[in-house]
Protein backbone atom coordinates (compact mmCIF):
# COMPACT_ATOMS: atom_id res chain seq x y z
CA UNK A 1 0.00 0.00 0.00
CA UNK A 2 0.94 3.65 -0.07
CA UNK A 3 1.69 5.77 2.95
CA UNK A 4 -1.04 8.09 4.20
CA UNK A 5 -0.69 11.81 3.67
CA UNK A 6 1.43 13.74 6.14
CA UNK A 7 2.87 17.18 6.66
CA UNK A 8 6.59 17.02 5.91
CA UNK A 9 9.44 18.96 7.43
CA UNK A 10 13.13 18.47 6.77
CA UNK A 11 14.85 20.75 9.25
CA UNK A 12 18.39 21.89 8.53
CA UNK A 13 19.31 22.41 12.17
CA UNK A 14 18.81 20.56 15.42
CA UNK A 15 17.07 23.57 16.94
CA UNK A 16 14.61 23.65 14.09
CA UNK A 17 13.97 19.92 14.46
CA UNK A 18 13.36 20.27 18.20
CA UNK A 19 11.07 23.25 17.63
CA UNK A 20 8.99 21.27 15.15
CA UNK A 21 8.74 18.42 17.64
CA UNK A 22 7.66 20.69 20.46
CA UNK A 23 5.07 22.35 18.21
CA UNK A 24 3.48 19.11 17.10
CA UNK A 25 4.14 16.80 20.07
CA UNK A 26 2.39 13.47 19.76
CA UNK A 27 1.16 14.24 16.23
CA UNK A 28 4.72 14.19 14.92
CA UNK A 29 7.10 11.34 14.23
CA UNK A 30 10.81 11.61 13.62
CA UNK A 31 11.99 10.04 10.37
CA UNK A 32 15.57 8.81 10.69
CA UNK A 33 16.56 5.81 8.55
CA UNK A 34 12.91 4.96 7.94
CA UNK A 35 13.50 1.22 7.81
CA UNK A 36 10.89 0.58 10.51
CA UNK A 37 8.73 3.68 10.26
CA UNK A 38 8.16 3.66 6.49
CA UNK A 39 6.95 0.03 6.47
CA UNK A 40 4.51 1.00 9.23
CA UNK A 41 3.32 3.91 7.06
CA UNK A 42 3.07 1.77 3.92
CA UNK A 43 1.07 -0.83 5.82
CA UNK A 44 -1.06 1.98 7.31
CA UNK A 45 -0.25 0.79 10.80
CA UNK A 46 0.91 4.30 11.62
CA UNK A 47 -0.48 7.58 10.36
CA UNK A 48 1.33 10.50 11.97
CA UNK A 49 0.09 13.93 10.95
CA UNK A 50 3.61 15.29 10.73
CA UNK A 51 6.93 13.76 9.74
CA UNK A 52 10.12 15.50 10.81
CA UNK A 53 12.82 14.13 8.52
CA UNK A 54 16.24 14.18 10.19
CA UNK A 55 18.16 13.22 7.07
CA UNK A 56 19.07 16.80 6.19
CA UNK A 57 20.85 17.32 9.50
CA UNK A 58 24.61 17.04 9.36
CA UNK A 59 25.06 16.47 13.09
CA UNK A 60 24.81 13.52 15.45
CA UNK A 61 26.36 11.13 12.95
CA UNK A 62 29.85 10.70 14.39
CA UNK A 63 31.38 7.61 15.97
CA UNK A 64 34.04 8.90 18.36
CA UNK A 65 36.22 7.72 21.22
CA UNK A 66 34.65 8.31 24.64
CA UNK A 67 35.61 7.00 28.09
CA UNK A 68 37.42 3.97 26.74
CA UNK A 69 34.35 3.23 24.65
CA UNK A 70 32.36 5.14 22.09
CA UNK A 71 30.12 8.15 21.71
CA UNK A 72 27.84 7.35 18.79
CA UNK A 73 25.70 9.99 17.15
CA UNK A 74 22.08 8.90 17.19
CA UNK A 75 21.91 9.48 13.44
CA UNK A 76 24.98 7.38 12.67
CA UNK A 77 23.98 4.81 10.07
CA UNK A 78 24.18 1.21 11.16
CA UNK A 79 26.53 0.52 8.25
CA UNK A 80 28.90 3.19 9.58
CA UNK A 81 29.00 1.48 12.97
CA UNK A 82 29.54 -1.87 11.30
CA UNK A 83 32.52 -0.49 9.37
CA UNK A 84 34.01 1.58 12.21
CA UNK A 85 37.53 0.48 13.10
CA UNK A 86 37.19 2.24 16.43
CA UNK A 87 34.08 0.18 17.22
CA UNK A 88 35.82 -3.02 16.16
CA UNK A 89 38.75 -2.29 18.47
CA UNK A 90 36.82 -1.06 21.45
CA UNK A 91 33.39 -2.62 21.35
CA UNK A 92 33.31 -5.56 18.96
CA UNK A 93 29.99 -6.62 20.51
CA UNK A 94 28.33 -3.65 18.79
CA UNK A 95 29.80 -4.60 15.43
CA UNK A 96 28.68 -8.19 15.80
CA UNK A 97 25.17 -7.13 16.84
CA UNK A 98 24.91 -4.58 14.04
CA UNK A 99 25.80 -7.13 11.39
CA UNK A 100 22.69 -9.04 12.45
CA UNK A 101 20.40 -6.04 11.88
CA UNK A 102 18.48 -6.60 8.63
CA UNK A 103 20.63 -6.62 5.51
CA UNK A 104 23.40 -4.39 4.16
CA UNK A 105 20.87 -2.30 2.21
CA UNK A 106 18.77 -1.80 5.34
CA UNK A 107 21.84 -0.83 7.37
CA UNK A 108 22.83 1.82 4.81
CA UNK A 109 19.76 3.77 5.89
CA UNK A 110 18.93 2.49 9.37
CA UNK A 111 20.37 4.54 12.21
CA UNK A 112 21.66 3.48 15.60
CA UNK A 113 19.41 5.92 17.45
CA UNK A 114 16.42 4.97 15.33
CA UNK A 115 16.72 1.33 16.29
CA UNK A 116 16.94 2.23 19.99
CA UNK A 117 14.04 4.70 19.92
CA UNK A 118 11.86 2.30 17.95
CA UNK A 119 12.52 -0.29 20.66
CA UNK A 120 11.41 -3.40 18.86
CA UNK A 121 11.72 -6.15 21.48
CA UNK A 122 13.40 -8.46 18.95
CA UNK A 123 15.96 -5.85 17.85
CA UNK A 124 19.64 -6.50 18.46
CA UNK A 125 20.98 -3.06 19.31
CA UNK A 126 18.80 -2.42 22.39
CA UNK A 127 19.99 -5.70 23.96
CA UNK A 128 23.61 -4.94 23.10
CA UNK A 129 23.34 -1.46 24.62
CA UNK A 130 21.78 -2.90 27.76
CA UNK A 131 24.62 -5.41 28.15
CA UNK A 132 27.15 -2.62 27.64
CA UNK A 133 25.59 -0.29 30.25
CA UNK A 134 25.17 2.42 27.61
CA UNK A 135 23.44 5.70 28.28
CA UNK A 136 21.38 7.73 25.87
CA UNK A 137 21.34 11.50 25.53
CA UNK A 138 17.91 12.95 24.74
CA UNK A 139 17.29 16.53 23.67
CA UNK A 140 14.28 18.76 23.50
CA UNK A 141 13.64 22.50 23.52
CA UNK A 142 13.46 22.05 27.29
CA UNK A 143 17.06 20.89 27.52
CA UNK A 144 19.06 17.72 27.59
CA UNK A 145 19.05 14.65 29.79
CA UNK A 146 20.96 11.40 29.95
CA UNK A 147 19.10 8.15 30.41
CA UNK A 148 20.65 4.81 31.34
CA UNK A 149 19.82 1.99 28.95
CA UNK A 150 18.39 0.10 31.92
CA UNK A 151 15.80 2.87 32.41
CA UNK A 152 15.14 3.64 28.75
CA UNK A 153 13.04 0.73 27.49
CA UNK A 154 9.62 0.58 29.10
CA UNK A 155 7.72 -1.97 27.05
CA UNK A 156 6.67 -3.04 23.60
CA UNK A 157 7.89 -0.36 21.17
CA UNK A 158 7.95 2.16 23.98
CA UNK A 159 10.64 4.12 25.75
CA UNK A 160 10.82 6.92 28.28
CA UNK A 161 11.35 9.46 25.48
CA UNK A 162 8.77 12.24 25.67
CA UNK A 163 6.99 13.22 22.44
CA UNK A 164 9.14 16.33 22.12
CA UNK A 165 12.46 14.57 22.71
CA UNK A 166 14.95 13.14 20.24
CA UNK A 167 18.03 11.04 20.84
CA UNK A 168 21.24 12.87 20.07
CA UNK A 169 23.97 10.57 21.27
CA UNK A 170 24.61 7.10 22.64
CA UNK A 171 27.46 6.83 25.11
CA UNK A 172 28.91 3.39 25.53
CA UNK A 173 31.61 2.97 28.16
CA UNK A 174 34.62 0.83 27.40
CA UNK A 175 34.93 -2.70 28.72
CA UNK A 176 37.72 -3.87 31.05
CA UNK A 177 40.75 -5.60 29.55
CA UNK A 178 40.48 -9.38 29.25
CA UNK A 179 36.84 -9.07 28.26
CA UNK A 180 35.29 -11.24 25.60
CA UNK A 181 31.98 -10.39 23.96
CA UNK A 182 29.52 -12.26 21.80
CA UNK A 183 26.14 -11.69 20.22
CA UNK A 184 24.33 -14.79 19.03
CA UNK A 185 20.78 -15.18 17.83
CA UNK A 186 18.26 -17.59 16.43
CA UNK A 187 16.37 -16.40 13.38
CA UNK A 188 14.58 -18.17 10.56
CA UNK A 189 16.71 -16.47 7.92
CA UNK A 190 19.76 -14.29 8.15
CA UNK A 191 18.62 -10.71 8.54
CA UNK A 192 15.24 -11.49 10.06
CA UNK A 193 14.39 -10.21 13.47
CA UNK A 194 15.64 -12.61 16.11
CA UNK A 195 13.29 -15.21 17.53
CA UNK A 196 15.61 -14.72 20.44
CA UNK A 197 19.14 -13.46 20.84
CA UNK A 198 21.73 -12.95 23.56
CA UNK A 199 24.50 -10.44 24.12
CA UNK A 200 27.20 -11.51 26.55
CA UNK A 201 30.30 -9.89 27.99
CA UNK A 202 32.66 -11.94 30.12
CA UNK A 203 35.68 -10.48 31.90
CA UNK A 204 38.17 -12.98 33.30
CA UNK A 205 40.43 -12.38 36.29
CA UNK A 206 44.07 -13.48 36.46
CA UNK A 207 43.01 -16.99 37.49
CA UNK A 208 40.75 -17.25 34.50
CA UNK A 209 37.58 -16.99 36.59
CA UNK A 210 34.61 -14.78 35.74
CA UNK A 211 35.22 -11.37 37.22
CA UNK A 212 32.36 -9.57 35.52
CA UNK A 213 29.53 -10.94 33.42
CA UNK A 214 26.85 -9.09 31.49
CA UNK A 215 24.02 -10.84 29.71
CA UNK A 216 21.09 -9.24 27.90
CA UNK A 217 18.53 -10.84 25.62
CA UNK A 218 16.18 -9.79 22.86
CA UNK A 219 12.99 -11.40 21.59
CA UNK A 220 12.00 -12.78 24.97
CA UNK A 221 9.75 -10.08 26.38
CA UNK A 222 8.27 -6.67 25.76
CA UNK A 223 11.73 -5.17 25.53
CA UNK A 224 15.38 -6.10 25.91
CA UNK A 225 16.02 -7.99 29.16
CA UNK A 226 19.11 -8.14 31.32
CA UNK A 227 19.55 -11.47 33.09
CA UNK A 228 21.14 -10.49 36.40
CA UNK A 229 20.51 -13.90 37.96
CA UNK A 230 22.78 -15.44 35.34
CA UNK A 231 25.43 -12.77 35.85
CA UNK A 232 25.40 -13.32 39.61
CA UNK A 233 25.56 -17.10 39.26
CA UNK A 234 28.78 -16.82 37.29
CA UNK A 235 30.49 -14.18 39.39
CA UNK A 236 33.78 -15.61 40.66
CA UNK A 237 33.13 -18.96 39.00
CA UNK A 238 35.45 -20.83 36.68
CA UNK A 239 33.74 -20.67 33.28
CA UNK A 240 33.61 -24.39 32.68
CA UNK A 241 30.89 -25.67 30.33
CA UNK A 242 28.81 -27.08 33.25
CA UNK A 243 28.94 -23.76 35.07
CA UNK A 244 27.86 -21.85 31.97
CA UNK A 245 25.10 -24.35 31.33
CA UNK A 246 23.65 -24.17 34.82
CA UNK A 247 23.95 -20.38 34.94
CA UNK A 248 22.27 -20.07 31.55
CA UNK A 249 19.28 -22.04 32.90
CA UNK A 250 18.57 -19.09 35.17
CA UNK A 251 17.68 -16.96 32.15
CA UNK A 252 14.12 -18.19 32.57
CA UNK A 253 13.89 -16.23 35.85
CA UNK A 254 14.29 -12.98 33.92
CA UNK A 255 12.04 -13.51 30.94
CA UNK A 256 8.38 -13.71 30.00
CA UNK A 257 8.56 -14.48 26.31
CA UNK A 258 5.69 -13.89 23.89
CA UNK A 259 4.13 -16.58 21.73
CA UNK A 260 3.70 -15.84 18.05
CA UNK A 261 3.82 -17.46 14.63
CA UNK A 262 7.56 -18.10 15.03
CA UNK A 263 7.29 -20.05 18.24
CA UNK A 264 5.48 -20.66 21.50
CA UNK A 265 6.51 -19.07 24.78
CA UNK A 266 7.87 -22.43 25.96
CA UNK A 267 9.99 -22.77 22.81
CA UNK A 268 11.37 -19.28 23.29
CA UNK A 269 12.24 -20.02 26.93
CA UNK A 270 14.13 -23.09 25.82
CA UNK A 271 15.91 -21.25 23.01
CA UNK A 272 16.75 -18.33 25.30
CA UNK A 273 18.69 -20.70 27.56
CA UNK A 274 20.57 -22.08 24.58
CA UNK A 275 21.35 -18.65 23.13
CA UNK A 276 22.51 -17.49 26.57
CA UNK A 277 24.80 -20.49 26.94
CA UNK A 278 26.26 -20.08 23.48
CA UNK A 279 26.83 -16.35 23.94
CA UNK A 280 28.48 -16.90 27.34
CA UNK A 281 30.68 -19.70 25.99
CA UNK A 282 31.78 -17.70 22.96
CA UNK A 283 32.43 -14.58 25.05
CA UNK A 284 34.49 -16.66 27.50
CA UNK A 285 36.49 -18.20 24.68
CA UNK A 286 37.19 -14.76 23.25
CA UNK A 287 38.15 -13.41 26.66
CA UNK A 288 40.58 -16.31 27.02
CA UNK A 289 42.06 -15.53 23.62
CA UNK A 290 42.50 -11.91 24.72
CA UNK A 291 44.55 -12.72 27.81
CA UNK A 292 48.34 -13.05 27.58
CA UNK A 293 48.10 -16.49 29.22
CA UNK A 294 46.22 -17.65 26.17
CA UNK A 295 43.10 -19.77 26.58
CA UNK A 296 41.09 -21.84 24.23
CA UNK A 297 42.19 -19.79 21.23
CA UNK A 298 39.88 -18.11 18.80
Amino acid at each position, binding site marked *: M*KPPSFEYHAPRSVDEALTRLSEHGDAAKLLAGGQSL*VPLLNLRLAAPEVLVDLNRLDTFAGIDAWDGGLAIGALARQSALERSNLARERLPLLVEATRLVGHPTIR*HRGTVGGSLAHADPAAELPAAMLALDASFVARSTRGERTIAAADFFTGYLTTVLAPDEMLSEIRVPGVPPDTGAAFVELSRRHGDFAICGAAALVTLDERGHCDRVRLALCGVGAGPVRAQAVEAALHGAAPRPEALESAAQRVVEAIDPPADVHGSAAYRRKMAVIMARRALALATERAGAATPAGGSGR
Partner: protein
Amino acid sequence: MSQPVQIRVTVNQTEHAALVEPRRLLSDFLREDLGLTGTHVGCEHGVCGACTVLLDGETVRSCLTFAIQADGRSVTTVEALASPDGTLHPIQDAFWEEHGLQCGFCTPGFLMTTYELLQTNPAPTVDEIRDAIAGNLCRCTGYQNIVKAVQSAADKLRAAPAAQPVS
Protein backbone atom coordinates in the same frame (compact mmCIF):
# COMPACT_ATOMS: atom_id res chain seq x y z
CA MET B 1 2.68 20.94 3.58
CA SER B 2 1.32 17.73 2.21
CA GLN B 3 1.00 19.89 -0.91
CA PRO B 4 3.25 18.87 -3.79
CA VAL B 5 6.81 20.07 -3.46
CA GLN B 6 9.30 20.81 -6.23
CA ILE B 7 12.26 18.44 -6.26
CA ARG B 8 15.27 17.97 -8.52
CA VAL B 9 16.73 14.50 -8.71
CA THR B 10 19.49 13.18 -10.92
CA VAL B 11 18.46 9.76 -12.16
CA ASN B 12 20.95 7.80 -14.24
CA GLN B 13 22.84 11.03 -14.86
CA THR B 14 19.80 12.92 -16.14
CA GLU B 15 18.40 15.67 -13.98
CA HIS B 16 14.66 15.63 -13.46
CA ALA B 17 12.53 18.33 -11.89
CA ALA B 18 9.13 17.29 -10.61
CA LEU B 19 6.34 18.17 -8.25
CA VAL B 20 5.77 15.40 -5.75
CA GLU B 21 3.60 14.89 -2.73
CA PRO B 22 5.83 14.27 0.29
CA ARG B 23 4.32 10.80 0.65
CA ARG B 24 5.38 9.84 -2.89
CA LEU B 25 7.64 6.80 -2.61
CA LEU B 26 10.84 6.90 -4.62
CA SER B 27 9.80 3.60 -6.23
CA ASP B 28 6.56 5.13 -7.51
CA PHE B 29 8.33 8.31 -8.55
CA LEU B 30 10.76 6.29 -10.68
CA ARG B 31 8.13 4.04 -12.20
CA GLU B 32 5.13 6.29 -12.61
CA ASP B 33 6.49 9.82 -12.84
CA LEU B 34 9.66 9.04 -14.79
CA GLY B 35 8.49 5.89 -16.57
CA LEU B 36 11.52 3.93 -15.40
CA THR B 37 9.70 0.66 -14.84
CA GLY B 38 12.85 -1.42 -14.50
CA THR B 39 12.69 -0.91 -10.74
CA HIS B 40 10.10 -3.40 -9.52
CA VAL B 41 7.80 -3.13 -6.55
CA GLY B 42 7.14 -6.39 -4.76
CA CYS B 43 6.21 -6.25 -1.11
CA GLU B 44 6.28 -2.47 -0.72
CA HIS B 45 7.38 -2.70 2.87
CA GLY B 46 11.08 -3.34 2.64
CA VAL B 47 11.22 -7.11 2.77
CA CYS B 48 11.69 -8.37 -0.80
CA GLY B 49 14.43 -6.14 -2.22
CA ALA B 50 12.96 -5.98 -5.76
CA CYS B 51 12.90 -2.16 -5.61
CA THR B 52 16.61 -1.79 -4.73
CA VAL B 53 18.29 1.23 -6.36
CA LEU B 54 21.43 3.20 -5.60
CA LEU B 55 21.07 6.52 -3.78
CA ASP B 56 24.32 8.45 -3.99
CA GLY B 57 26.02 5.17 -4.81
CA GLU B 58 24.62 3.06 -1.95
CA THR B 59 21.80 0.56 -2.22
CA VAL B 60 18.48 1.55 -0.68
CA ARG B 61 14.97 0.18 -0.76
CA SER B 62 13.20 2.68 -2.98
CA CYS B 63 9.88 1.65 -1.40
CA LEU B 64 11.18 2.82 1.98
CA THR B 65 12.52 6.12 0.64
CA PHE B 66 10.41 9.13 -0.19
CA ALA B 67 11.09 10.84 -3.51
CA ILE B 68 11.42 14.11 -1.62
CA GLN B 69 14.36 12.61 0.27
CA ALA B 70 16.19 12.20 -3.04
CA ASP B 71 15.92 15.94 -3.73
CA GLY B 72 19.36 17.17 -4.78
CA ARG B 73 20.74 13.66 -4.83
CA SER B 74 21.66 11.05 -7.38
CA VAL B 75 19.76 7.83 -8.07
CA THR B 76 20.95 4.92 -10.19
CA THR B 77 18.45 2.34 -11.41
CA VAL B 78 18.77 -0.91 -13.30
CA GLU B 79 18.25 1.00 -16.54
CA ALA B 80 21.76 2.42 -16.12
CA LEU B 81 23.43 -0.98 -16.30
CA ALA B 82 23.16 -1.77 -20.01
CA SER B 83 24.90 0.48 -22.51
CA PRO B 84 22.79 2.90 -24.54
CA ASP B 85 23.18 0.58 -27.53
CA GLY B 86 21.57 -2.23 -25.56
CA THR B 87 24.73 -4.17 -24.80
CA LEU B 88 24.16 -5.85 -21.48
CA HIS B 89 26.33 -5.13 -18.47
CA PRO B 90 28.61 -8.05 -17.48
CA ILE B 91 26.43 -8.62 -14.40
CA GLN B 92 23.37 -8.93 -16.64
CA ASP B 93 25.25 -11.22 -19.00
CA ALA B 94 26.24 -13.41 -16.08
CA PHE B 95 22.64 -13.69 -14.81
CA TRP B 96 21.55 -14.60 -18.34
CA GLU B 97 24.26 -17.19 -18.89
CA GLU B 98 23.96 -18.82 -15.46
CA HIS B 99 20.14 -18.86 -15.51
CA GLY B 100 20.10 -16.58 -12.48
CA LEU B 101 16.44 -15.83 -13.08
CA GLN B 102 13.21 -17.42 -14.19
CA CYS B 103 10.34 -14.93 -14.11
CA GLY B 104 12.70 -12.00 -13.68
CA PHE B 105 10.59 -10.03 -11.24
CA CYS B 106 13.25 -9.94 -8.53
CA THR B 107 16.13 -9.51 -10.98
CA PRO B 108 16.46 -5.70 -10.98
CA GLY B 109 16.97 -5.79 -7.23
CA PHE B 110 19.49 -8.61 -7.46
CA LEU B 111 21.40 -6.78 -10.18
CA MET B 112 21.69 -3.57 -8.18
CA THR B 113 22.64 -5.44 -5.01
CA THR B 114 25.25 -7.41 -6.97
CA TYR B 115 26.53 -4.20 -8.51
CA GLU B 116 27.17 -2.71 -5.08
CA LEU B 117 28.71 -5.92 -3.74
CA LEU B 118 31.19 -6.18 -6.60
CA GLN B 119 32.11 -2.52 -6.35
CA THR B 120 33.14 -2.99 -2.74
CA ASN B 121 34.30 -6.61 -2.90
CA PRO B 122 35.50 -7.66 -6.36
CA ALA B 123 36.17 -11.28 -5.34
CA PRO B 124 33.51 -12.32 -2.84
CA THR B 125 33.34 -15.81 -1.37
CA VAL B 126 30.12 -17.81 -1.64
CA ASP B 127 29.34 -16.93 1.98
CA GLU B 128 29.87 -13.25 1.30
CA ILE B 129 27.64 -13.45 -1.77
CA ARG B 130 24.89 -15.16 0.21
CA ASP B 131 25.21 -12.59 2.96
CA ALA B 132 25.01 -9.74 0.45
CA ILE B 133 21.93 -11.05 -1.37
CA ALA B 134 20.10 -12.22 1.76
CA GLY B 135 17.86 -9.16 1.56
CA ASN B 136 16.63 -10.02 -1.93
CA LEU B 137 13.92 -12.62 -2.29
CA CYS B 138 13.52 -14.83 -5.35
CA ARG B 139 10.46 -17.08 -5.42
CA CYS B 140 11.35 -19.03 -8.60
CA THR B 141 14.86 -20.29 -8.75
CA GLY B 142 16.25 -21.01 -5.39
CA TYR B 143 19.47 -19.17 -5.05
CA GLN B 144 21.99 -21.61 -6.51
CA ASN B 145 22.11 -20.08 -9.96
CA ILE B 146 21.94 -16.56 -8.61
CA VAL B 147 25.05 -17.24 -6.54
CA LYS B 148 26.73 -18.74 -9.62
CA ALA B 149 25.75 -15.68 -11.62
CA VAL B 150 27.28 -13.35 -9.05
CA GLN B 151 30.49 -15.41 -9.08
CA SER B 152 30.59 -15.31 -12.85
CA ALA B 153 29.89 -11.56 -12.85
CA ALA B 154 32.77 -11.06 -10.44
CA ASP B 155 35.08 -12.97 -12.79
CA LYS B 156 33.93 -10.93 -15.78
CA LEU B 157 34.35 -7.62 -14.02
CA ARG B 158 37.80 -8.48 -12.76
CA ALA B 159 38.77 -9.41 -16.33
CA ALA B 160 37.28 -6.21 -17.78
CA PRO B 161 37.00 -3.55 -15.10
CA ALA B 162 36.30 -0.88 -17.72
CA ALA B 163 32.83 -2.34 -18.12
CA GLN B 164 31.66 -0.64 -14.94
CA PRO B 165 28.96 1.96 -15.47
CA VAL B 166 29.25 5.32 -13.83
CA SER B 167 26.67 6.03 -11.20
